[in-house]
């Protein structure tokens, strides 16, 4: 059985072997002077200093060297190395769970090769009755191969596994291991965690307890002296120049290694075209930013990527993003024929001051509503209007169903009781007069709704300032949601979802005809903005996502609405809320109606989403990047990690060593018995040395006899 050492650093003590050799070579003179009757003959013998460098007592030297060697070896704690397979054969069958890290950071250098080697080695130790489960984990854990004794299958699965783009989280993997081992029926339960043990993957408050008797063996593939340059962030500065929108890209670069990166080329590419390249120097453990030349954003969903440097982890050397021109939300305000345009002045004024997003408003009388006026609109506002012509009504209905927004402000011109439309969130009733006293006030507001969430906090708008002299009654349907009520319980605002679109009904005109102070109140403007952006399903355009994000159909749909193509008559008839998602690796998934509700953005790169009925338009593009935490390769100390996971030290409560999980403490101690023998041998050698040295000194004692007087 081969030996290894528990404390090999003590072997440096073997250097002390030089000491006795030097002592024997140097042959230092005794301090005592030997009195001799006459130097008559001694003086005749030539004195040769080289003689002093001759070893005179080989036995004494050998004893001294043996004593030192034995003592040093004993302190180094020699350990009988027993193969894991041999150890495994000594006791019962094992239930082994291999937790193999496939997060993006494992792509660093040869970490992945080492990890798969370690996994294969674990599989090689499996006995005929042992079972093993292979779990691949990154941010989530997946049971890749269920408990099996088929080593070939396990090896094949390990060989087929690939490093992903996701981040690292140990907790899901450990919970899965905990679950698997809890259910296991075999007597010995083991989990083997093979990872680079990134610090960012573990939060200490995670509560994980392996079953009693189960052991956790960490196998770290982390290496020292890591160097990694990553493109950690990208920001955009938009500017309009000669009627065109230009964007200036600034990329942040982070060097988390100990070696500087000097004059590394940082490159900006847009739609496959190289825009700019600049050299940049990043000191160790520092960040720098680089700003590229601006470029014109002329198309929707333009694909951009910033690349910088080459190192052992290439995946974080690129940052992907998609950009579209920022366009205002197009709002069509329809008012009753013959009414003064001033009736919508409060509305247009409020929308005119918007910048994020900007609004573009058009006011038309109801008689002039045509399909062309609805095309490319984001939101339509029916401001106290008489019923639309049936053609326009159908068109409006289709507009809403396909994602358009509709705001209906009820008033005098709105049909009287009995007026009902599939678009309205309820049945309209007669107006209610609140002329007595100060008028009606808003008594209930659903702050959980997106539109009113802004006013939830104290001093975030006082709705008590608005007094209403009259409002229309609205009886909401069972699927409709009441967002606000007056103090007498009457509905002030209700919502209905129609198809992919949204409809909000406000039971009072958005002018000063039924409420003198509401359009002049401070909260009028933000309330109108919130209602319109909500109806427009406006979200701040996302330039990039992080791996693991779930993308549903609402995102590309919102982009369509934002781009103003929801009312496109040419494609509207054929359009459904269905999209075909193509991943960077070419995998296709259908989301929306008839497909999956969402798709996980699991790969780094560009996902394209082509919505049904969008024809030849550019598809929606989602740029996906690594979790920035994956670039932080600082590792945990594996044994400390296991201790924090299990709440135990390096040896588990069951009395088993982590390094040799098959062995009890007694076994481990028994395998280290050699050091006792070495200690005894060293002591015996020292004893022999003392005896021999005394004997040698005894001879010398002759010369030390004192001269006696006669």
């Amino acid at each position, binding site marked *: 059985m081969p030996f290894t050492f528990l404390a090999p650093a003590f072997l440096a003590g073997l250097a002390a072997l030089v000491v006795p050799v030097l002592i024997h070579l140097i042959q230092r003179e005794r301090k005592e*002077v030997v*009195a001799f009757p006459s130097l008559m003959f*001694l003086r005749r013998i030539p004195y040769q200093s080289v*003689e002093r460098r001759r070893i005179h007592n080989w036995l004494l030297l050998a004893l001294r060297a043996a004593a030192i060697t034995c003592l040093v070896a004993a302190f180094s704690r020699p350990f009988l190395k027993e193969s894991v397979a041999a150890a495994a054969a000594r006791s019962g069958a094992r239930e082994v769970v291999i937790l193999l890290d496939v997060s993006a950071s494992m792509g660093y250098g040869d970490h992945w090769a080492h990890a798969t080697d370690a996994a294969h080695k674990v599989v090689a130790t499996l006995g005929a009755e042992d079972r093993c489960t292979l779990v691949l984990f990154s941010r989530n854990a997946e049971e890749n191969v269920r408990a099996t004794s088929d080593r070939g299958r396990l090896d094949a699965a390990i060989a087929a596994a690939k490093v992903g783009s996701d981040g690292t989280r140990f907790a899901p993997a450990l919970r899965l291991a905990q679950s698997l081992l809890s259910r296991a029926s075999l007597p010995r339960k083991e989990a083997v965690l093979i990872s680079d043990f990134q610090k960012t993957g573990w939060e200490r408050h995670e509560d994980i307890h392996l079953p009693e008797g189960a052991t956790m063996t960490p196998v770290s593939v982390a290496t020292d002296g890591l160097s990694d340059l990553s493109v950690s962030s990208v920001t955009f500065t938009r500017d309009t120049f000669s009627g065109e929108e230009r964007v200036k890209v600034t990329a942040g670069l982070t060097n988390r290694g100990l070696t500087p990166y000097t004059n590394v080329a940082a490159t900006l590419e847009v739609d496959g075209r190289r825009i700019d390249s600049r050299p940049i120097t990043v000191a160790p453990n520092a960040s720098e930013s680089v700003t590229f030349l601006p470029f014109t954003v002329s198309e929707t969903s333009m694909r951009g990527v910033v690349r910088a440097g080459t190192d052992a982890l290439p995946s974080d050397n690129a940052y992907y993003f998609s950009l579209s021109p920022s366009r205002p939300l197009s709002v069509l305000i329809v008012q009753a024929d013959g009414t003064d345009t001033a009736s919508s002045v409060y509305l247009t004024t409020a929308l005119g001051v918007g910048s994020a997003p900007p609004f573009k408003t058009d006011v038309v009388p109801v008689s002039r509503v045509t399909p062309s006026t609805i095309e490319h609109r984001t939101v339509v506002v029916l401001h106290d209007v008489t019923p639309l012509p049936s053609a326009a009504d159908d068109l409006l209905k289709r507009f809403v169903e396909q994602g358009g927004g509709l705001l209906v402000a009820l008033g005098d011109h709105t049909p009287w009781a009995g007026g009902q439309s599939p678009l309205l969130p309820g049945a309209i009733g007669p107006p209610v007069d609140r002329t007595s006293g100060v008028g009606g006030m808003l008594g209930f507001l659903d702050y959980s709704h997106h539109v009113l969430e802004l006013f939830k906090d104290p001093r975030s708008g006082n709705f008590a300032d608005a007094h209403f002299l009259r409002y229309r009654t609205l009886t909401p349907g069972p699927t409709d949601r009441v967002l606000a009520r007056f103090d007498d319980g009457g509905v002030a605002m209700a919502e209905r979802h129609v198809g992919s679109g949204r409809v909000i009904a406000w039971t009072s005109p958005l002018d000063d005809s039924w409420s003198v102070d509401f359009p002049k109140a401070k909260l009028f403007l933000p309330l109108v903005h919130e209602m319109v952006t909500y109806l427009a399903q406006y979200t701040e355009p996302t330039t990039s996502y992080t791996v693991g994000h779930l993308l549903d159909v609402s995102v590309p749909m919102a982009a369509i609405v934002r781009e103003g193509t929801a009312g496109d008559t040419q494609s509207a008839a054929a359009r459904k809320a269905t999209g075909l998602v193509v991943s960077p690796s070419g995998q296709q998934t259908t989301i929306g109606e008839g497909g999956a509700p969402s798709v996980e953005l699991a790969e780094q790169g560009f996902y394209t989403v082509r919505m049904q009925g969008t024809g030849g338009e550019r598809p929606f593009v989602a740029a996906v990047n690594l979790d920035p935490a994956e670039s932080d390769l600082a590792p945990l100390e594996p044994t400390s990690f296991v201790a924090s996971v299990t709440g135990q030290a390096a040896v588990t409560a069951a009395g088993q060593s982590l390094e040799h999980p098959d062995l009890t403490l007694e076994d481990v101690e028994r395998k280290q018995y050699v050091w006792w023998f070495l200690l005894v041998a060293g002591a015996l050698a020292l004893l022999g040395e003392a005896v021999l040295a005394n004997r040698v000194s005894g001879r010398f004692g002759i010369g030390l006899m004192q001269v006696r007087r*006669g």
Partner: protein
Amino acid sequence: MSTTPGARFIDPKVLGRIRNLELLAKTVVEGFINGLHRAPYFGASIDFAEHRGYVPGDDIRRVDWKVYARTDRYFVKQYEADTNANFAVLFDVSKSMAFASQGVSKLEYGSYVAACLAYLSHLQRDRVGITTFDEDVVAYVPSSAKHFHVLLHTLHQARAERPGRLSVPLGRMAEHFKRRSIVALISDLYEDPDDLIQALTPYRFMGHDVVVFHVLDPAEIDFPYRDASRFQDLESGEEIPVIADSFADEYRKLMRAHIEALTTKCAEVRIDYVLLNTAKPLDEALFLYLGNRERLMRVR
């Protein structure tokens, strides 16, 4: 302790406990005499040796009148030795004699040897005397039948305190020995053999019977040191670095050569040379010496 047939020997360490030199000498010598098959009464012989022709000046009392009656010529009887001979000890008390790697120093051992020989001579009614010296003469006791106890006292008082030099005091002392004597030189002989022989030759010319007792400590003979040290000369105080382990063989070779040179050169001038190891029993040394002496006298 090594044993020799016919003799029992006493460890010098045991002798060292006897503080009375007379008792010590008596213990050694009488034990030693009892072990001999034949007592070689040295110098006290009355045995007839030969006749020689009378020459004017001879004592007429020595004329063998019986031979004159038979031959009508004057012959004088000659005997093995003269009775009441002088026995003089030349004892080196230089500082190097204080060296002792074991229980007995060379000075002590030499004292025992001198005492034993003096006691032996005293038993034969010889005159005994002693001269101690280092670089010069320290004490001089002329030979006399009454000086045995003075000799012992002188030995008792001997101190190895100063550096020594054989040639000067030996040359100076040669003039003091008018009568033929048995001269016993007891020293560690750290002197060039030629110089030593040159210093002793006058004694031979003057008809003295010279015996050299070369007293050495076993450490001086075997050089058992192993560690590199500084060695200090006991007499001069000089220190030199010594790689004992590597010097040992060379030292032993030089010491052997020194002893061989002394043996050879002493034999050339008919000086008895006896090497005494302070680790060896004292009576064993006497036995060896007197045994050799007897053999030599028979040859003569």
